[in-house]
């Protein structure tokens, strides 16, 4: 059985940084009301939904053992307007060459997990929202970021349904 993990990342107390957590929470809510939702199909769980405020190496504890990983996170490139959506796959992950003080992002965790032979997911999809302010302590999202949530929730559900279909075919 193919197992998928939908993991929302972020910090609840740091303004826009919470967007990943909010999105997966809403995905979970909405999927409860769907007649043929991909969370459990024929009494078998296809998709697990989790939230985490952790980072770096700690993510290994969450993601090992799954076949496929779908991340929802925030990102700040400064190159696109806040609220823009980045969609990335494992092909976009390159191990960082120049290390910054603490750099241990998903790409390094991904590489480390594979290098040590852990049961890592084979596939990865990342939905990341360009954020405006992840540095103010607070629980309010900026309007630009807040507005993207409904569309992204829909997009994530659509994606989960697509890969669940694939999962059923593989069964």
């Amino acid at each position, binding site marked *: 059985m193919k197992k998928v993990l939908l993991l929302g990342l972020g910090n609840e107390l740091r303004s826009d940084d919470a967007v990943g957590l909010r999105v997966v929470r809403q995905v979970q809510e909405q999927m409860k009301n769907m007649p043929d939702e991909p969370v459990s199909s024929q009494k078998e769980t296809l998709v697990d939904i989790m939230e985490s405020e952790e980072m770096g190496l700690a993510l290994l504890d969450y993601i090992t053992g799954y076949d496929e990983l779908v991340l929802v996170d925030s990102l700040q490139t400064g190159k696109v307007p806040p609220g823009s959506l980045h969609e990335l796959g494992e092909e976009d992950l390159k191990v960082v060459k120049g290390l*910054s003080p603490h750099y241990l992002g998903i790409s390094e965790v991904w*590489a480390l997990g594979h290098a040590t032979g852990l049961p890592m997911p084979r596939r990865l999809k990342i939905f990341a929202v360009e954020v405006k302010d992840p540095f103010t302590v607070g629980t309010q999202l900026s309007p630009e970021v807040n507005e993207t949530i409904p569309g992204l929730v829909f997009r994530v559900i659509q994606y989960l349904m697509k890969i669940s279909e694939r999962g059923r075919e593989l069964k």
Partner: protein
Amino acid sequence: MKEEIQKVWSEAQRRANEAYMEKRRVTVDPITRLEGHGKIDIFLDDKGEVERAYFQVPELRGFEVFCLGRPAEDMPQITSRICGVCPTAHHIASTKALDDLYKVDPPPAAKKIRELMYNTFMLEDHALHVYILGGPDFIVGPDAPAEIRNVVGVIQKVGVEVGKKVITMRRRLREFLSYLGGKVIHPVLGLPGGVAKGIAVADLPAFQQLAKDGLDFALFTLQVFRDIVLKNPDYVKLITSDTYTHKTYYMGLVDANNRVNFYDGLIRVVTPEGKEYARFPVQKYLDYVAEHVEPWSYVKFCYLKPVGWNGFTDGIESGIYAVAPLARLNASDGMATPQAQTAHDEFYSVLGGKPVHHTLATHWARVVEMVYAAERMNELINEPDITSKELRVIPTETPEIGIGVVEAPRGTLIHHYETDENGILRKVNLIVATQNNSARIAMSVEKAAKGLIHKGEVSEGLLNKIEMAFRAYDPCHACATHSLPGHMPLLVTIRDDSGKILQELKQE
């Protein structure tokens, strides 16, 4: 009138700063938000020599505003959630501030459980730095090609089995933290006057085994460090090189015998010559610690108030001090456990006695502390009353002021709260570890830049050598909590004294 003068002065200052910023700058801008990102501006003079280098970090805004008006009991949860890097350090510092606020002394078993949790966290966090964050500099090597100087390079060097060992040990330590705190990231263990949960007798053997394995792991790490780093004369030369040396004061918590303690004790400060300068309870920190403000940085630079701020200089006349593993060892008379004491003695005999002023020796001091943390775990988990159910003294006094301290992995961490008679917060002040170190970090960055840029020419490896200067401190600024899927490249822009770009270097 006074306000007007202030306004004019501020405007003049702003213009002067702007004009200065316009010209002569080299920028190193590693924009990754992980555990805070740093930005370094290097200004050259008309001869192409480094005039000043500024290390900047983003600001965590609105923390105090967010806390004021809330019950003080919320602080162990709030502060541990602000930063995903050292949640346990904030949780315990905050809990100790609440003990002080409500004037309660927790039962012995509760203190032991807190300290046990704390040492477990220290071992885990230090291991992460030694192998994963700082490892690329030393395990792979400071001069190794950039494409292998990363976590995968570390695994290649130490072997897959060791990599697995690190990951497994870290996971087991975290499981124990979850057992005690509910969650690693939002622990709910500490309460004013005690802890919320004890250790069940039935669970004890597994944790005793974990402590034993933790010590084996720490000693193994010490051996890895000896084999890879100390046996390489080039590394030792780099550690002791002048570029990475500053003669400052050092601060750390010590027990009654002046030995390192992470959880409790008095704050001790030693001079650059290693003599005791001060030894005081945290409640007196404002007599000793003051903050200096620079217009170019959000970070306030801590210095020793009685010595005074004398600019970014070292020596006995300058109030700049350091915290974190190297500083803790320097500020103590030794370690409270036998194998850590042996490791401590080896450290000082190789590096020429106390105090050691070489910033890069912090990596080694961190390994010495791993041994101590693991030994202390073993002591505490085997205490006869560690499974005691007497875990809390209920506060009865009216709250007013509470100040607590721990040694976070990155150094002395102080929480200071003031409340009304109902325990509602009216004032919150945190001195975080990296803030204590900020002046010395700024000096390290500048010294590295000065050593590597001459006549407008930038030596090979500038980025990494400068980064090494601050990576040793394991700085954690506006601690962001989680990993992002992307990263920004490193960019160095070199400008001559007219502001013209001479060269741009990028690390993708």
